[in-house]
């Protein structure tokens, strides 16, 4: 790991101001869109550059609800696909949303919460229930964390996933209680085994009946409990409130948000994370102000953050499509994402995706290249609704060398190094008789490069 100089927390979280050495340009705007969303084409980048970075962040935050038109279309698509009952089809409906939503930050954050409150369709087996959870996450994504945690504690899909569909006072099921502290709010080491046992008692009587949450008061343990230093005859809601109210919670959540939005391997010391954590506390545990702070910060636009993330499979594929204004077969993408480790509605376990270097192994490296091969040889894959050749021609691009430039501008967090570029040109640069096929081969090669995996 590279030696990082210690980051000054005050500087880190102050708002970024463009300067001559770091001008607000297409490249910085592309960084913002890759992180706060899934990417932007040249038109969106140019619109962003015409504004200030703060205005763009404000706008991304303000789109905390989908426009009703888009929502109507995306929801009805999901409902149609849901009718088949296959969660993989639901996964394709989400791909559609990721690809077309105007509310990119909302969707990116919804995906964050799906990895955080991870729930797998392979165990829940009910796609309608998974869909309801997805809507729940979207509804609260940029809102109040307390409300989100309370809602997820009663979410049928979550409780089925954690085997808590009938929690009786005689032998409380500890699974949800443990994960609420370990994975959802506080982190391992910030509670004791006794806290797990006592917290589990609070949730007794909570059940899922006919796919809905309900309380069975005959099964609730009404005795006094002792959780995290507090004593009382707490029920489940009070238990969530106590856990969420801990001082450790905002630091835990902000660390995870910073890894997701800023950098995979930044050393997030207590000093550094305290400012976002304080922001979260001061704003009554609202998420939007924390994201606004992070996405407008010096740290976010600095070398500590730029190209310091490995793209998740969703960022990889949706990023390529959004960057070139591409569209494709959502089912193909949904299956492909699962093959390379990020099946939507299929997180690997309750801890969700670890991200960072964990995305990469020999299989996924080959799988990422193969997925692009598949997408780019599919007839449904179009750019600006047309062929790649026509789309490039609209940008006045007629040869391989300029196409490489264009791909680099729209898609890459780091430039392609000169030696690789020469080799690309030699091996994939000849457009020959079938330019469409050859532009696609070239794009496939660019997307397979190690550099392309960086966000």
């Amino acid at each position, binding site marked *: *790991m*590279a030696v990082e100089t210690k980051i000054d927390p005050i500087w880190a979280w102050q708002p970024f101001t463009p300067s001559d050495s770091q001008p607000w340009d297409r490249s910085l705007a592309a960084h913002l869109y890759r992180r706060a969303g899934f990417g932007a084409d040249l038109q969106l980048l140019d619109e962003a550059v015409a504004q200030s970075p703060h205005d763009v962040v404000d706008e991304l935050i303000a789109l905390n609800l989908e426009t009703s038109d888009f929502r109507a279309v995306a929801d009805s698509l999901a409902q149609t696909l849901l009718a088949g009952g296959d969660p993989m089809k639901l996964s394709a409906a989400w791909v559609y949303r990721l690809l077309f939503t105007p509310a990119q930050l909302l969707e990116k954050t919804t995906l964050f919460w799906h990895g955080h409150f991870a729930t797998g369709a392979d165990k829940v087996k009910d796609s309608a229930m998974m869909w309801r959870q997805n809507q729940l996450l979207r509804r609260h994504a940029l809102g109040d964390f307390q409300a989100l945690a309370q809602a997820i504690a009663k979410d049928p899909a979550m409780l089925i996933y954690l*085997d*808590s*569909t009938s*929690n*009786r006072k005689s*032998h*409380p*099921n*500890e*699974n949800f209680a443990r994960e609420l502290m*370990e*994975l959802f709010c506080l982190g*391992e*080491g910030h509670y004791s*085994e006794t806290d*797990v046992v006592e917290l589990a008692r609070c949730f007794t009587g909570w059940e899922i009946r006919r796919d809905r949450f309900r309380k069975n008061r005959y099964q609730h343990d009404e005795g006094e409990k002792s959780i995290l230093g507090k004593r009382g005859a707490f029920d489940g809601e009070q238990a969530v409130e106590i856990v969420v109210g801990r001082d450790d919670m905002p630091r835990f959540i902000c660390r995870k948000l910073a890894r997701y939005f800023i950098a995979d*391997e930044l050393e997030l010391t207590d000093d550094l994370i305290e400012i976002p954590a304080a922001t979260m506390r001061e704003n009554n545990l609202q998420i939007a102000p924390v994201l606004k702070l992070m996405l407008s910060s010096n740290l976010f636009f600095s*070398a500590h953050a*730029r*190209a*310091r*993330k*490995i793209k998740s499979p969703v960022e990889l594929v949706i990023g390529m499509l959004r960057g070139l204004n591409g569209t494709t077969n959502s089912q193909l993408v949904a299956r492909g994402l699962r*093959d390379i*480790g990020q099946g939507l509605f299929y997180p*690997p*376990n309750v801890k969700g995706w670890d991200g960072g*270097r*964990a995305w*990469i*192994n*020999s*299989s*996924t*490296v*080959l*799988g990422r*290249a*193969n997925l692009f*091969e*598949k997408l780019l*040889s599919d007839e449904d894959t179009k750019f600006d609704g047309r062929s790649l050749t026509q789309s490039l021609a609209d940008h006045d691009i007629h040869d391989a060398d300029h196409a490489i430039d264009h791909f680099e501008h729209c898609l890459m*967090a*780091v430039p392609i*190094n000169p*030696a*690789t570029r020469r*080799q690309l040109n030699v*091996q*994939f640069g000849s457009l020959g008789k079938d330019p469409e096929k050859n532009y696609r*081969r070239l794009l*496939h*090669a660019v997307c*397979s*490069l*190690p*550099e392309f995996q*960086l966000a």
Partner: protein
Amino acid sequence: MFSERTNRRRFLYTSGGGGLAIGIGSSLPSCFLHAAESATGDEDRILVVVQLSGGNDGLNTVIPYADDAYRAARATLAVPRSEVLAIDDDLGFHPSLRGIKDLLDDGQVAVVQGVGYENPNRSHFESMDIWHSCVRKDQSRTDGWIGRALEQFTAADGGDVPALHLGEQQQPFALASETIRVPTVKQLEAFQLRGADSPALRRLLNGPPTPAADQAGGDLLGFLQSSTQGAISASQRVTAAAEGYQTDIKYPQSRLADQLRLVAQLISAEMTTRVYYLQLDGFDTHAQQGDTHAILLRQWSDAVAAFLRDMKAHGHTDRVCVMTFSEFGRRVAENASAGTDHGAAGPMFLCGGGLNAGLIGTAPRLDDLQQGDLKHSVDFRSVYASVLKDWLGTDPDRVLRGHYETLPLFAGA
């Protein structure tokens, strides 16, 4: 193609198996046997690790069927005495473990009882990290125990990777190393570049890495470059090695069995890879444990038994050891959902040809619990130490970051 060592071992094995044909008689003369034994040097031995993820219920795996306390603690989950596959008067296997029981009777299983560690952690993720790294959270964790062991092996001929992970899951931290990149193979068919352009793409991606350290992206880019090159070369070698494999052994239909069959393929193709790592998920049985656990145990048992039969048929029995573990056992008392919550100690299994077969250590007591959990009597690192020293022939202390006594697991140790 094959090293001299491998050829010698193959030749000796073949002549042993065909003893009658070359007129020596039904048993080999002792000079041949010694030669055959020494031909299986440390560097020839293979470790296959099977991780049972989610916390296997050890108490319903190796069952204290004669203990009334067992039945008392498990009103619905206790396995009826008549169904237990008795090992001795006190203990027996779950009825799903027919394959493992047969292997035991054949002298190919060592069961280490009551394995765990001090101050057990009941988080799946933290406990797994402890098993993988061998150290607690307050110490620095940059690599795993197998990753550190790989760094001590001398590089084998043929350019094969020293270890291979097979599975859909994220690569286990046990394989992490500062210098060695272990490939993950999900499925053999998908483990190669597809498309008409694949030779050109392979040339492009396999080119010399660019100096990454001074670029944006820094060491992450370096990591991506070496991962890409490693993937390309592993893909070519593994694909070539697996071609043309034949076996008469029928493997059961399960993912684990498919993966073990691939391991058998690669071993038979004389890959010099020393460690294979596989995972079987689903042991987090908080509710309705009975059927799920029975299915999972059967998958594990049948797959391992088929694999070892295959290894025997191909003459590799004495080179292969399958080590199975889980991050913790489960609570002794069942919960109200006919499941069990996270517990502590559990058994570990070693299967293969070179073992001191049978039960090793003492069974945990049901009348002496710790927070409702079984107490451990063997530190898991002692099992690792035995495997490292007596099987893989490497220094355990450096790998384990401390000294742990070895156990009499291996014959001749």
